[in-house]
Structures are given as C-alpha cells and as structure tokens.
C-alpha cells in the first residue's frame, strides 16, 4: 500500500524537522484537509488519495524552523520558485515527494452529484465512486480532474529529499494553451462581458490570494492598502476586476500554475484563466516557465537590453 510507504517516509523525516505537513481526512469523505504533525503517534492519521488537493508548499515561507512537507509534482514548482526568489532556505525544508498522475476536483465531483451530502468515497481503477443518499455513483476520474492535470508533465516532483514510492513518467500531452487561444478569439467586448459576469460574483474574500503559494505580500496587499490607494472598498465589478488583474500581473513569470486560486474560490470564478494567459505570454515572449529550474531568474526580475524573442519596435 502506498500510504504505508508515505507514512514510513514521514516517520523517517519527523525526527529531523519541527513539523511535517501532510493530509488527513476532513469533515466529510470528499474533503482532505492539511495536517500539521510533530509526534510519531500522529503519523497514522495521514491519508493519501486523489482528493489530497491543497498545495501544502504555500505554508512554508511563513513557517519558522525545519519543515517537512508532502509535495506533488505540480506543487513542487512552488519549491523551485521559492528557491529562485530566495523565499526559503532549501536546507530547512525536507520535501517528501509523492508521484501523482491526477488529482480530483472536489467542485467537479460536487457538480456531478448535484451538491448532495457524500456518505462514502472509494477509488477503483480510474474511477471515483461517491456514495450519496440515492446510492453509489461511479465517475471517471479524468472527468472530474482539474484542468491542470490534463497536461501535467510532472508526475514525479522536481524537488524531493525522499520519494514515497517509485518515480514515474507523465503520460499526458504538453500544454498547448488551446483553451486560452480559443478564448482570445472572442472580441474584446465579448471577453469584457465574460469577465464582468464572472467577477460580479467576487466577494473579495481573498481566498485566491491567500491560497496562492506565490502571493507573498499577503498582509501588505494593495487590495486593502489605503496608501497606495489602488482600490477602494466598493463592491463593484471595477474594483473586483482591478484586484484580479493586479493579482495576475504580480504573478507574471512567477505563477507556477498550481491553480489553487481557482480551486479555493467559493464563488466558482475561473480566476486561473487569467494566470494561464499570462503564463502563455511569458512562455512566448521569454521562453520561460516559472518554477522549473532553481537557477533561473524570473524574467520580470531581470533586464536585458535585447530580448531574444521580442522584436524591437521601430522608432
């Protein structure tokens, strides 16, 4: 059983660190919840399944001492990006890598079962079986996976000190940003109407910001600042759009595409679409992907007189 390998890895790491961050069962069978443990007897509460969705790396820059953390491939880009931006001391972090081919979106499962109460969840092959009051419902995992999983290249984390299980290769095609390119074909008015409708639901709870592993300003965010005064506290779509655009632009060349922002939104706003567009542009303009190589410098952190892939404007 994989969970035994994971527990063994955690037991091994535990004496070397102050805390290990993993997952345990949350309030119902569909929800996993982050679990901070520092005692060997707590290890048995750990779980591992495709519903372990949270990016646990997001906690690391704010923790003191030595930290062990369970990391999936997608999440491992956060560790790399932290290293680039010198937000962590790598020696203080013990990365317990887990191979992963796909996680499952709780929101998509809830939509598939019409938001009913879940009594039991089991996994069989490539299916998730969810027991609801009217009986068990079998759903193919691929149908309820977050969109990032469809093009995941990181089945094995980029960084790890211990790997629970064997390293595996990705079995997914490369991301070609098809969805973004399709969306860009819409007229400016259509895109504006789309975002006005989506942002209208925003309640400015800042879950997207606080769950973002790269939103490191946190308490100093311009969304709440009076000085500088970029946004007001009015609850209109202009202010909401302003916040989301700033969130996106602050992540240019830094967003590691974990899509936590979108996963956590209680209003189901597809905010990761904005970051995806910016990631696509960064790839085209600078040939750069965030969080892939610890020795890289994010393009917005540096300046070259002539960029290899950008044509100079005629003066």
């Amino acid at each position, binding site marked *: 059983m994989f969970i035994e390998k994971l527990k063994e890895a955690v037991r091994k790491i535990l004496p070397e660190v102050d805390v290990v961050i993993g997952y345990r069962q949350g309030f119902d069978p569909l929800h996993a*919840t982050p679990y901070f443990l520092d005692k060997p007897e707590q290890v048995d509460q750990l779980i591992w399944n495709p519903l372990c969705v949270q990016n646990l790396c997001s906690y690391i820059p704010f923790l003191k001492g030595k930290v062990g953390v369970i990391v999936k491939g997608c999440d491992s880009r956060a560790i790399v990006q932290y290293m680039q931006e010198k937000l962590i001391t790598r020696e203080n972090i013990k990365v317990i890598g887990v191979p992963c081919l796909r996680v499952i979106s709780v929101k998509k499962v*809830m939509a598939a079962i019409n938001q009913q109460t879940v009594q039991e969840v089991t996994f069989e092959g490539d299916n998730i079986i969810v027991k609801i009051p009217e009986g068990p419902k079998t759903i193919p995992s691929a149908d309820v996976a977050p969109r990032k999983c469809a093009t995941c290249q990181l089945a094995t984390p980029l960084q790890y000190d211990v790997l629970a299980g064997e390293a595996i290769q990705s079995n997914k095609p490369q991301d070609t940003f098809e969805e973004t390119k399709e969306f860009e074909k819409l007229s400016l008015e259509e895109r504006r109407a789309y975002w006005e409708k989506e942002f209208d639901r925003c309640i400015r709870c800042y879950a997207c910001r606080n769950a973002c592993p790269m939103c490191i300003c946190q308490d100093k965010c311009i969304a709440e600042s009076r000085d500088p005064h970029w946004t007001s*506290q009015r609850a209109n779509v202009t202010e909401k759009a302003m916040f989301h655009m700033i969130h996106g632009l602050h992540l240019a060349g830094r967003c590691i595409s974990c899509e936590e922002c979108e996963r956590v939104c*209680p209003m189901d706003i597809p905010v990761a679409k904005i970051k995806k567009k910016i990631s696509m542009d960064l790839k085209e303009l600078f040939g750069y992907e965030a969080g892939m190589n610890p020795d890289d410098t994010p393009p917005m952190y540096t300046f070259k007189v002539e960029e290899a892939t950008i044509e100079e404007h005629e003066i």
Partner: protein
Amino acid sequence: MADTGFLPKENLPALLEALSKKFAVFAPVLDGEVVLFKRFAPGATLCLTRPANLPPKGIIFPQSETLFNFNFKKDPEDPKKTSLELKENLDFVPTIIFGSRPCDAQGFRIYDRVYLETDTADPYYKGRREKTTIITLACNAPSPGCFCTSVGRGPAESDGSDLMMTELGKGYFFEPMTEKGKEIFKDSLFEDGSAYKEQAQKAHERVSALVKKPFAILEGTPEKLLSLFENSQFWEGETAKCISCGACTYLCPTCYCFNITDEQVGNSGERIRSWDACMFFHFTLEASSHNPRQNKHQRLKNRVGHKFSYYPKKYQGVIACCGCGRCIRYCPMSVDISEIVAHAQGA
C-alpha cells in the same frame, strides 16, 4: 382565511411575479454552479434544492454601501471659508427575501441584537430590516458540513422568518409567523393548508434527525473558550492550516463586522461602509502600526470566540452561529469550526 396555506409548485413563479409588483423580490438563482440571491425576474432559474452559496445577508447588510455623500463648498467671496454639504442615503424599498434557509433567517436575529435592540439603532440596517419580509424554506436534507441542531437550532426553525414554507411532494406548505408574513399570505394563490400541517411536521422531524451532531451540548462552552484564551499552543494547533482569508466570514450569515472608508475626488466624495473580516491582518491594525492580532491563530480564535463565547456572554447565552456549515463547506483548507469547538470542549 385559513392559518396555513398550500401552493402547488407550478404556481410558484406566479406568486413571485405577483409579489414582484409590490416588492423588490430576491430569490436564490442558479449562476453556473453557484446559487446566489438575485433580484427575481420572470424566467429566472430558481434553485431551491440547496442553500445558496452566499446567504442573503447582503440584501439587508450590503457588502458595500454609501452611507452619505459629502461635498466641501468654497465660499467664492472668501476661499478660506468652506462649508460642508451632506446627503444622506436612507431610501429603502419594500423587499422580500424569498427562499432563505432557517439558518440564513436566524442570522438576521443575531444582527438585530447588535444593530436594532440597542439605544443607538443603526439607521441603515434598521431601514432595510423593517422593510424586508423573509420567506424561509425549511431544509429537506442536510448540506455538507452543516450542524444547526447542535447550536440550538434546526432545519425548520422559524425564528427570524416571517413566513415558513415546507416542500411537500407537489407543492409547498406555508405558515405565517409574523404580521408581515400574514400580509404576504393574503395572496389568493394559496389553497387551504390545514390538511398538510401534520405532514410538514413529520418532514421537519425526519430532516432534523439527519443533521450532523459534532457536539452534544454547548453548556459551559463560552466559559471553556475563555479559559483557553491565553493558550496559544491550543490555538496555533487548531489554526495551523488556516490561510487567514475572508471566505468563512463573508459567507457567514452571522458575521456582521464592517469597515468605514471615505472615497474622495476633489472636494466631494462618499463615505462607504463595507464588510470586513476579523480574519484579515488589517482588521485590528492600529494607526501606530501595532497590531494586537498579529498572528492568524489570534484571528481565528476571535472568530470562534465571538460566536461561541463573547456574543453568548453578552446576549443571554445566544450562540452567534446558526450551523449553516458554509465556513466548513467552502473553506479552502477545510477548516471545521465545529471541530475546533469540540476540541475546545475537550481541552
């Protein structure tokens, strides 16, 4: 006229259309996968099968509202002299909240003690509250994470509602609870409901038994939480996974804290009141830059403490949590307030 009524499901749009002629009617409407209270318009996709993602609190206590507009006027004869013009914003329209859940409606009862039942009632809250009629739909199934029966409430609790409705097969059973509710009930679309009363009662009992019970009793909980106030180890442990966002607070039907800011351009502007959340660092940030709640565990401790200790201590033991479960259901990290309370009881 009968004391109770029955309305076949197919007549529901007609009722809402009739009410829309006299009131601004807000009803739960499906927007993608999200249910939100929106101004009812004929043809809207009503969603009564589950509680709205966001409670209807914003209809009476808006996320952001202009309290008044101001304008500094310079005296053309003597530019050093300025006078101030204020324009109050106290026009409120008769409103109906249709299809709230019992927990949503009781949220307003929590607000009432703070904003109405004091010697300085809040004119904005009071204005909207008095003009609003609340028609509540009893729950016919628990929702993920909800626990209303553990906080002294229930899926058919009528406190805070003007008119109660219960889904029974082909229609809805209606029971007015207040004078405001009786006014609505006068509508001729209702049939006599007396034959359905017992059936409704049975439905209420059935659902009540299905609701999760994270703790058996609340007695002693306010005192217990106070005794843990200085125990930062307990709170750090309980809140380690919290990311200190405002989702729980803004989705909560009983959270009522606000911020006030002035937005001024040139000589004129407006004073805005907007929702605020004790989960935010800025909530307690003082002008000196000192922050008494520097850390997230202090902030979540406040949220739990306010609902289960400070508020009941101040208001005759009333728990300021209706158990709607939204803070659990939609928490990015699945923080569970009922679990924290249970842990505190056992600590």
